[in-house]
């Protein structure tokens, strides 16, 4: 029973970890938004999608969250007419990554919001712990 606050902190920590992992994937996507192939038959960068898995931690006795496999976005590549590009095909089109910077920005905001929510839980739990310790000081 007394471990309950520790559990809360560990669960919130797992949430923080997952959200920062998600930020890493988003950063990768944005950084590679213009990474084309070098040859006409090569594929450009394919957008990565983080997945979340709720996993029951038997040691903790609660559902923590973990970053699942990072999947690839199956959407089509964008085609742009650039005949001089080394990766241009016979018709002069170049395949660009299927990354939408706007979508990534929105995802980033969401990750930020969830991160803050987890931090809030940590703060609230810490306040509760220090209030408990104050009982000693009566």
């Amino acid at each position, binding site marked *: *029973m007394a471990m*309950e*606050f520790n*559990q*809360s*902190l560990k*669960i*919130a920590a*797992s*949430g923080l970890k*997952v*959200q920062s992992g*998600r930020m890493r994937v988003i950063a990768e996507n944005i950084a590679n938004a213009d990474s084309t192939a070098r040859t006409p038959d090569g594929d450009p960068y394919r957008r990565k999608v983080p*997945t*979340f*898995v*709720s996993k029951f931690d038997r040691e903790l*006795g*609660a*559902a*923590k*969250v973990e970053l699942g496999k990072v999947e690839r976005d199956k959407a089509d590549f964008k085609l742009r007419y650039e005949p001089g590009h080394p990766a241009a095909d016979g018709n002069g089109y170049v395949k660009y990554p299927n990354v939408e910077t706007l979508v990534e920005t929105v995802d980033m905001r*969401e990750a930020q*919001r*969830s991160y803050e*929510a*987890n931090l*809030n*839980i940590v703060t*609230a*739990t810490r*306040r*509760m712990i220090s*209030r*408990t310790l*104050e*009982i000693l000081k*009566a």
Partner: protein
Amino acid sequence: MAIGDIGLMGALRTRMQWHQARQRVLAENVANADTPHYKAKDLAKPELPAAAAAAVSGAVGGSLGTVRAASVTLAATQAGHLSGNGGSAFKATGGQPFEVRPSGNAVDLEDQMAKSAENQLDYQTVASLYQQSLALLRTAVGRK
């Protein structure tokens, strides 16, 4: 006599444990705020056992009922069975989801934040009451 045997103190202690357990459930909800098919959970309020409830509402001078939830443990039917670490004594409820996202996730962060703040405030109230009761006891034994 342990301090928890005094009705009021026991009740306050159970209430504090309930808030601790609830904080854990809320942490779980927030951590899983982006997990597909995850539904937010909450804890049911601890209930007064029938006998204790009668004592509270009944005759003046009746002892205050201790809010005590029976702990759920694993049944050990073989010699080698482990008891596990008890599990929480409080019952989890599903609650009504405010909204379900296309991914099947039903955690509303704002709602969880509000609940967490409420839980923290209530915990502080109970902790203060507990502290006051301790001061009362201290007065009773004649110390300042």
